[in-house]
C-alpha cells in the first residue's frame, strides 16, 4: 500500500520526465532520419570522394557511443564557442547518432527493392529521377520502416543517458526522487515501468507492421 501511495505521489514528476524523454526522442528522429536519408543516398554516390567521406562519417557516427556523443556536444562544443542547453545538446547528439544509424537502415531498405522492378521501370522509359522518387524511395522506405520503428524505440531508451547532462528526463527525475527519499529501487522500478509502457506496445506495433508488410510484399 505504501508503495502505491509513493508511486501516486511520484507519478506526476516522472510523467513530466517521460514527456521530456519523448520530446527529445521525437525531435532527434525528426532531425536524424532525413539526414540519414541523405547520407544513405550519398553513401552510394557515383563520386568516389563523396561516397567515401559519407561512409567515414557514418561509420564514425555509428561507432561512437551515444554517451560520448552527448558529452562531446554538451561539454565539447562550448570550447568551440557553441553553448547549448542540455535539451538542445541532447536533441543534436541523439539526432547525429540517429542519422548515422538510420542511413544504414535506409540504405539496406533501398538495396532490398527487387532489381526486376527497377528494370521494369527502366524498360517503361521512366526517367532516373522518377524511378528514384516513385519506385525506389517508397518501396525502400516501406522495407526499412519496421527496422526504423525498432530503432526509434531504442533511441527512447538511449535518451536516458541525457541524465548525465542534467536534462530533466525520466531517469533524472527518478534519480532526484531517489536522492531525496532513498527509495531508489521503488522509484527506478516505476520509471522502468513507464519506459516499458511505451516500448512494449511499440514493439508489438513493429511486429504487427512487419507481418502486414511481409504479407503485402509476398
Amino acid at each position, binding site marked *: 500500500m505504501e508503495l502505491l501511495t509513493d508511486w501516486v505521489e511520484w507519478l506526476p514528476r516522472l510523467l513530466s520526465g517521460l514527456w521530456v524523454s519523448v520530446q527529445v526522442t521525437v525531435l532527434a528522429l525528426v532531425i536524424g532520419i532525413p539526414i540519414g536519408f541523405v547520407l544513405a543516398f550519398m553513401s552510394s554516390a557515383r563520386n568516389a570522394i563523396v561516397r567515401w567521406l559519407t561512409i567515414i562519417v557514418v561509420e564514425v557516427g555509428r561507432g561512437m557511443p551515444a554517451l560520448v556523443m552527448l558529452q562531446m556536444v554538451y561539454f565539447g562544443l562550448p570550447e568551440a564557442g557553441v553553448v547549448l542547453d542540455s535539451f538542445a545538446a541532447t536533441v543534436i547528439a541523439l539526432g547525429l547518432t540517429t542519422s548515422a544509424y538510420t542511413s544504414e537502415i535506409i540504405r539496406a531498405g533501398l538495396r532490398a527493392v*527487387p532489381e*526486376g*522492378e527497377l*528494370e*521494369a*521501370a*527502366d*524498360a*517503361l*522509359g*521512366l*526517367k*532516373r529521377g*522518377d524511378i528514384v522518387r*516513385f*519506385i525506389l524511395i*517508397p*518501396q525502400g522506405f*516501406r522495407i526499412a520502416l519496421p527496422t526504423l520503428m525498432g530503432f526509434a524505440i531504442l533511441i527512447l531508451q538511449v535518451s536516458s543517458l541525457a541524465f548525465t547532462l542534467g536534462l530533466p528526463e525520466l531517469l533524472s527525475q527518478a534519480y532526484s526522487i531517489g536522492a531525496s527519499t532513498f527509495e531508489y529501487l521503488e522509484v527506478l522500478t516505476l520509471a522502468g515501468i513507464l519506459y516499458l509502457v511505451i516500448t512494449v506496445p511499440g514493439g508489438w506495433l513493429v511486429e504487427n507492421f512487419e507481418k502486414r508488410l511481409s*504479407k*503485402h*510484399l*509476398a
Partner: protein
Amino acid sequence: MTDPQPKAGETILRLNDIRKVYGDHVALGGVSLDVKRGEVVAIIGPSGSGKSTLLRCVNQLEVPDSGTLEVLGSNIDFAGRVSSADLLALRRKVGMVFQSFNLFPHMNVLRNVSFPQERVLGRSREEADKVSRDLLERVGLANKMENFPQKCSGGQQQRVAIARALALEPQIMLFDEPTSALDPELGLEVLAVMRRLADQGMTMVVVTHEIHFAAEVADRLIVMADGAIIEEGVPSELLAAPKTARAKQFLSAITDR
C-alpha cells in the same frame, strides 16, 4: 489494341553484329536480326544461349559491347556512348514483358498501368486511367483494377504487365518467357492475350518455350545456341525439319517432355 500499323513489311528493328561479353564469357557473339513491322518472331534455345541478353540489348537494359541497333529509323552505334535522351526515346518505342511480371507492389493494378503513362507520356490522371481501364478490360481484368498485384494470380499479374507496357503505345513488344513462371492453365490466359495482340498487327519478339504458340502465332522462328542464331525459318518448316544437329537436339529435348 493499338492502331492498325501502316506500311506493313518495312524493317523497323535491325540488330547488326551485336556483341556482348561478360568477363570472358561471350553471351552474344555478333548477332544480326531484322524484324519487319507486324512480324512476330519467336526465339527458342537452350538455357544460357543468350536469348534474354538479346532482348535486353534491344531496349538497352544491357548495353552491347559493339554492334549497331536501328529502331524505327533511329540508329544507335555502341562503339560510342548512348545519350540518355536517345535511350528514353528508344524505350518509348519498345515495350517489354518479363518472366517475373515485375509489377510495382505499392501500387494497385490501375496505378501500375496509369502511373507510367503520366510520367512518360505526360498524360493527365484522367486520360491515363481511361486508357488503363480500357486496356485492362481487354485483357480480362475489369474487376481487378483496385487490387494490389499480390492479390492477383500470376496470370493476372502478367496480363497487367502487358497492359502496362501497351499503355505507352510501343511499336515493338518484347516478351522474355512471359509464361515460364506460370502454371500451364494461367499461361494460356497470357498466351491468348498475346495471340490477340499479334492478330492486331503488333510487332513482337517473343522468347518462349511454348512450341505450340511459336508454331501457330510466329511468322518466323529463331533458334539460338551459345550466343548465336544457329537456325531460322518458318516455324512449321523449321520444327518439322531442323537443319542443324544442335537445333535438332534441342527440339527433340523439349518436345519429348
